[in-house]
């Protein structure tokens, strides 16, 4: 399976994503933001970081970058696109995903492990994943997801909510919501479910010496579903 990780100026989880994808068997290549096209890929990843310094608004300048047209075309033709953290912010800015990511409710950057509940398994990202609740890691200042009532209705009607913040028993609720995201949303799909944006970083949870190993489950599962 071939994957491509886009590097924007200011991306800083690009290497981590590259390491994770290769560890689980992807043939990964790094693509520069100023390139005109993306080589044939089964998966395109927009990594975390501070693309273009997150100036103006997180992800907004990246959503106008040269490479982004290829990403949008790829997504529109049904290709699999994964945006993590800043990548999620970029996806909402491009319009591939609905809604916005606002500053965290308590106005602080948050770096910690969180639990998320997998809400939908009828998609290539989470199909057949063994656990219902994953322990992942967040590190962001703007992860407070918000969308209009209409957008929320369509997210819910089409089962586009991918993962929600919860505790280790799966209880959602304010006390388990780290950033104030509406309905505890940590990640969503587009309507065709080939585009996933999420704030948690699975690439930081890929061996037992790191924060945990549920990221490994995510990548192993993804590869299996693509094969």
């Amino acid at each position, binding site marked *: 399976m071939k994957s491509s990780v886009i590097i924007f*100026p*200011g991306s*800083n*989880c690009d*290497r*981590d994503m590259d*390491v*994770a994808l290769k560890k689980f068997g992807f043939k990964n290549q790094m693509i520069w933001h*100023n390139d005109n096209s993306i080589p044939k890929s089964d998966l395109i990843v927009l990594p*975390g*970081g*501070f693309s*273009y*310094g*997150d*100036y103006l608004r997180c992800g907004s300048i990246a959503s106008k970058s040269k490479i982004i047209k290829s990403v949008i075309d790829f997504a529109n033709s049904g290709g699999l696109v994964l945006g993590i953290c800043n990548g999620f912010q970029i996806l909402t800015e491009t319009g591939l995903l609905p809604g916005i990511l606002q500053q965290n409710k*308590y106005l*602080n*950057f*948050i*770096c*910690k492990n969180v639990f998320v509940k997998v809400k939908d398994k009828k998609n290539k990202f989470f199909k057949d994943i063994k656990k219902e609740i994953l322990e992942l*890691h967040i*590190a962001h*200042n703007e992860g407070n997801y918000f969308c209009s009532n209409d957008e929320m209705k369509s997210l819910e009607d089409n089962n586009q909510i991918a993962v929600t913040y919860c505790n280790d028993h799966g209880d959602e609720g304010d006390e388990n919501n780290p950033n104030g995201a509406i309905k505890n949303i940590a990640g969503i799909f587009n309507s065709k479910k080939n585009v996933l944006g999420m704030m948690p*970083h699975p*690439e*930081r949870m*890929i061996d037992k*010496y*790191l*924060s945990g190993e549920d990221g490994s489950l995510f990548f192993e599962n993804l590869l299996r579903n693509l094969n």
Partner: protein
Amino acid sequence: MEVTEKIAVEHGLKKDEYKKICDLLKRVPNITELAIFSAMWNEHCSYKSSRKHLKKLHTQGKKVIQGPGENAGVIDIGDEDAIVFKIESHNHPSFIEPYQGAATGVGGIMRDVFTMGARPIANLNSIHFGSPQHKKTKNLLRGVVKGIGGYGNCIGVPTVAGQTSFDESYNGNILVNAMTLGLVNKNKIFYSKAAGVDKPVIYVGSKTGRDGIHGASMASAIFDDKIEEKKPTVQVGDPFTEKLLLEACLELMEGNSIIAIQDMGAAGLTSSSVEMASKGKLGIELNLNKVPCREEKMTPYEIMLSESQERMLIVLENGKEDHAKKIFDKWNLDFAVIGKTTNTKKIDLLFDNKNVASIPLEFLAEDAPVYDRKWKKTKLPQKLKFDKKQFKSLNLSDCLNKILSSPNVADKKWIWDQYDHTVMGDTIQKPGGDAGVVRVHGTSKAVAASVDASATYCFSHPLTGGKQIVCESWRNLISVGAKPIAITNCLNFGNPEKEKNMGEFVECVEGITEASKYLDFPVVSGNVSFYNETKDKGIKPTPAIGGVGLIKDYQKMITMDFKKTGNIVYIIGKTEGHLDQSIFARNILLEKKGPPPSINLFNEKNIGETILHLIDKNLIQTCHDVSIGGILTAVSKMCIRGQKGIKINPFKDLVNKYEYFFSEDQGRYIIEIEKTNIKKVNDLLKKNSVHFEELGIIDDKNLSFNGEINLPIEELSKTHKYWLKNYMEN
């Protein structure tokens, strides 16, 4: 403008220093030349008060590749890997503008590290604030933490460890010390010494603006009522540009284009150009019209003194300009050939086709003033005799709760949750433990780092305090299973023109030297920050020590959280009951006199090496050193982290329980042992003549002792975690 003595004094020069400048030049300097002298001769750049004493530091060792004198120190960690590291202060700017002051402190230290060709892999910080009740403390703390996070998080370098303390001596002068570790191939290290004549001098990075002018002289002055007026001299950071600069520099360093490289830190273009040329015994000529400027009509004076951030000066090989320019263009950074190296041994500045400054470099470097300042020795205070009767009204559980929730002991999670500590995917020990640990990417090795300061001990007796802080750093590295290799020091002191403050500096340096020599734990880099004084009130002497150690096999790293019910807990090292200067004496008995606990370097080394041996043989599960708050505090933290309890054995001998539990005797560790390993551990400890005692056995949920303490760990956790969060959010 004609330069006069009055103008020179306004630039922070002393009258006799100005006379010396005129004598050296055999004329009156022009304003640009005066600016250059004032920047190079101030305390921050010239180390004029400290130089004599810094020479005494122990800086040699088998693992030392580069000691003090470069952008950062470098140590060998085996194979072809080397670690570049340094700590630096950004105290004065952070007090005036906490967010930008702290942020640019982090930016500056990272540049020092990647200037040498190393990719930064870990950040640490040591931050010290005034009394929590002081009206400025909360906002300063919030701003500093946001600034450190704002910069480090954006660059994508994990902040893996740190230290925070509160003391009223910092009410008017907070301390912000930032430390960075970088990884480099030991055959590809870049230095700041220029070589060769007629080599192009390149300016890269951000444009030059009027920010930060006189920053270095501000850092060499004491504060007064007009401090707020200094805001314009605080630099403004742009971590995004720094990230681009980092990537661009590392890309350029892959080839053979660079002869020398130096970041523009304090005193900007002045100190970087002077240092590169004078280290290479060359001259340098710069055309200031070529310097990329952000603002219009900047004068040579302003260009030379600007401390705009995210800039580098590079001496390139001839003919490599186009290759280098292509890389900086790719990263959207300014690139300009602004001059060349010469054989004149002078710095010559051209502006509008005129020579606007011409100064022999030796006048700026070798001839800079060096002072042998008067200093006063601090006598060892008399040991206190505590009246044991006053302990009778106390209750062990209350004392423990008070200590665990006191500002200097309370959990600092509120702070490090705001730092990205996991980016780069190699952080295997997060903040909150004895040391932060990151893997050396793609190898079985890991590097441990910690940063420590104990101003209370240093204030009471600087010589002992200096030794203690090196030992504490050593113990923190040992506790995670790392072999300590070297240290960097950030020497934060008051006004060196006062005999008491100068004495504190001299004796702390002596203490640091003695301990680092004995432990073979050399100092490879550092910085001095004097004049931490506001309206005549100086800070307590606060040398911060950043220690770095190596774990050859990261799978052997250990942590401080208790692991398994039924395992046995030992105290290693002797408990003598020294309460003077302890947090128990200060916070519970309200007794602030007496000497700090003494240091026995022989024991320190012997015990430390024995612990490392136990870890290497996989004989212990957990380790934590005993520091402020004594045994009971240390053991509580181990319980909290592991969500386990402990049943502490009743005392066999006639020991005073307060002295036993809360004394801060040095050189002690607490370890957890599986029952099946007890004999092997005992044998090894006896063989090495290490004193040990069994403290108790790990229990499910309570910390208990002899019917006198019975505290659920959940409650202890709340007590420990509550203070800072509550303080900051209410």
